[in-house]
Every structure is written in structure tokens, then in C-alpha cells.
């Protein structure tokens, strides 16, 4: 006996096997990302005032990546429709664009956004020393506005050797714009455009610092969550790109000649996965970049 319903639907359920398979898989994926997002909620609710940072990510780049992912979601559904209409040349084009979009997304993420974070520096000031750095932090102004305090000074680290050399007693930081003019109301909330650190150097005594690292997962729970969720999401994008490439190569053409409906089904299933990856990003983007 052969396994039935691999291509055609079972009459009483109306589904072919892979369709039910992928939806079950996606259900478990919902729970996987659900676990991570509930960790996000839990940790964010638990964070002390000022310890969940805002505006540290590059919003235009994030918006661009969102648009790229949405575009690829459109092209993959078009590729499937082309297969359904038995237009193989069109399918190849749309699928090619989808793969390209996926690759662009990954390159922007791993080649630009993440490395940009690795060179950014932040020093959490001890609560006893916050007063001392008031000229850089402007917390009295924030208090008057009813906004959470600033507890961290960020920018580019000028004296890198300070990270490892215990003899150096201070960090010299090329300050991010907000610390050059902390009481300006325009600086109260993050801006859309990313502005690199200024020329102005702020000196922070190591003795006053609670914790200072580059923007790595170790820096705070915000970056820990950011790197974990976007990393896992990136792995999903990579998996999608690999599957699409497999169907785009001669393997796909061969299957198309044998049974075009089977290829259409497989592309539909892979497409469902891809849409889900897009759907996750739709939540990741505002949660990490905007809020």
C-alpha cells in the first residue's frame, strides 16, 4: 500500500498531508515564539524604571527590513499563484526575488545591524553616583516631565583598553547626542533617524559604574531578548531561504515536469512557513525598535 493523499486532498478532511503537517508545525512555532514573547513581557514588566532602554536600534534600517520581508511575502504568494496557473517562467522570477529578499534581510541584519551594536558602548551608573553625572543625564528635567530616569551613558568607547586594563580608572565615551543636551525637551523621546555619537567626550569614573559593556547580549535583558529573538528569527529566515533555493534549483524544474501540482503544493507549504516568519517579524519590529 502506498501512502495516500500526498498530492490530492482526502475527501472528508479536504486536506492533503503536508498541508495539515505544516499547520501543526506552525502551531508549535506559535508556542515557541509565544514562550519568547512571554519572557519579553515578563522581563520588561519586571525591569526597574529606566532599565528597559528605548531608541537604541536603528529605526530606518528596521523599517527597511520590514518592508523587504513584506515584499518577499507578496512575491512568494505570487510565485505560488504562477505555479497554479502553470506559468513556470514567472514562478522562477518571483521565487528568485523572494530568495533575494531573504538574503538581503539577513545581510542587513547580520552584516550591518548586529555589528553596529557590537561597537556601541554603554555604562550603567551606580544609583549613588547618579547625582554626580546629572549634567550628562538630566534626570531632574525628566522627573519634572514624569518620564523614567536615565541610568546609563552610551556612545562609542574612546579608550578601548579601559575594558581590560584595571590600571585605567575611567571610561572616555564619545557621547550619543542625547547626553550632550540632556535637558532639551526634543531629546526626551527617541528620534526616527539614527544620529551617530558626537565628538564630545564624556568621562565616567569606573568607580561610579555599576556595569559597562558593549551592546552585546550580556549588556542588559533588553539586548539579551533582542539578540535571542532576532537570532532565532534569523535562523528561520535562513531555513526558508534554503528551502526556497531547493525548489528554485533544477530539483524544482524536475518536479514541475513530473507533477506540477505537487510542486505547487510544496511551494504553498514552504510559503506558509515564510508568511509565518513574516508574521513574527511584524511583532518583533515594533516591540524592539519602536516601543
Amino acid at each position, binding site marked *: 500500500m502506498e501512502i495516500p493523499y500526498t498530492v*490530492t*486532498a482526502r475527501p472528508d*478532511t*479536504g*486536506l*492533503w498531508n503536508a*498541508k*495539515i503537517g505544516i*499547520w*501543526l508545525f506552525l*502551531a508549535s512555532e*506559535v*508556542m515557541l515564539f*509565544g*514562550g519568547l*514573547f*512571554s519572557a519579553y*513581557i*515578563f522581563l520588561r*514588566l*519586571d525591569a526597574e524604571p529606566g532599565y528597559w532602554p528605548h531608541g537604541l536600534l536603528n*529605526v530606518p534600517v528596521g*523599517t527597511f527590513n*520590514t*518592508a523587504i520581508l*513584506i*515584499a518577499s*511575502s*507578496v512575491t512568494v*504568494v*505570487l510565485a505560488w*499563484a504562477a505555479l*497554479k*496557473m*502553470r506559468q513556470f517562467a514567472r514562478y522562477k522570477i518571483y521565487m528568485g526575488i523572494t530568495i533575494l529578499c531573504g538574503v538581503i534581510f539577513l545581510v542587513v541584519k547580520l552584516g550591518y545591524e548586529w555589528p553596529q551594536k557590537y561597537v556601541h558602548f554603554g555604562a550603567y551608573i551606580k544609583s549613588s553616583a547618579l547625582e554626580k553625572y546629572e549634567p550628562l543625564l538630566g534626570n531632574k528635567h525628566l522627573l519634572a516631565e514624569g518620564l523614567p530616569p536615565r541610568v546609563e551613558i552610551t556612545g562609542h568607547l574612546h579608550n578601548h583598553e579601559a575594558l581590560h586594563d584595571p590600571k585605567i580608572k575611567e571610561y572616555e565615551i564619545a557621547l550619543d547626542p542625547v547626553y550632550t543636551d540632556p535637558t532639551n525637551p526634543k531629546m526626551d*523621546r527617541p*528620534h*526616527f533617524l539614527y544620529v551617530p555619537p558626537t565628538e564630545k567626550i564624556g568621562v565616567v569614573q569606573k568607580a561610579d559604574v555599576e556595569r559597562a559593556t558593549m551592546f552585546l547580549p550580556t549588556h542588559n535583558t533588553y539586548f539579551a531578548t533582542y539578540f535571542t529573538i532576532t537570532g532565532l528569527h534569523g535562523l528561520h529566515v535562513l531555513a526558508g531561504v534554503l528551502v526556497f533555493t531547493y525548489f528554485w534549483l533544477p530539483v524544482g524544474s524536475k518536479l514541475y515536469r513530473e507533477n506540477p*501540482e505537487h510542486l505547487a503544493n510544496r511551494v504553498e507549504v514552504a*510559503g*506558509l512557513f515564510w*508568511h*509565518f516568519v*513574516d*508574521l513574527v517579524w*511584524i*511583532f518583533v*519590529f*515594533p*516591540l524592539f525598535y*519602536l*516601543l
Partner: protein
Amino acid sequence: MNNPPDISPAQHETEQYAHDVSKHVRGYLIVGGTLIFCTALTVFLSYVNFGSQKANVSVAMLLAAFKAGLVAYIFMHLSAEKKLIYRVLLFTGIFVFALFWLTYLAWYDPISH
């Protein structure tokens, strides 16, 4: 929006069938455009002060839910899916909600807050 039928019923109906799918193609493009527009809107609204952080989060999450709904409903063909898949997703939805709500509830304690 309905799905095209899964299998072209017969050779002579292929033309009609292809026509049906091509109608959907325009719909997919419109949805894609809407999604990009909504993304821009989300970014814009996040810089508008709605009075409190909670309000801003709510606005952004509502928009995200709308976008996710469009993706699921149109691109993932949930507008015309089989009952069985709705059932699976219904239970998944309940459990993921339980996970969110109950971890939140565990954080909230009427005695200490």
C-alpha cells in the same frame, strides 16, 4: 477572498481557472501595499505621544495585530481554510493566550502591588 480550487477540475476549464487566480494576484498586491503602508503608520504613530507608554504600546500592538491578521487571512489563505485547521489554531490561540495572561497574572500580586 476565496482560494482558487485546489486542483484544476478538467483541461477545458483551465482557462477559467487561470483567470480566477489572476484575479487574486491583484488582491495580493493590494494587501502587500496595505502592509507596507501600515508599517509606515506604525513607525509614525510611535513618535506621537498618546499620553502614556501603555497607550503607545496598545496602538502599536493593535496595528501589528491588524497586519498579522492580513498576512494570516489573505497570504496564508485562512479566509477559506478547512474547519480542522481552524480548530487546531483555535486551541493554539487559547494556550498561547494562557501562557501570556497567566505569566502576567503570576507577576501581578494584589498583596505586594
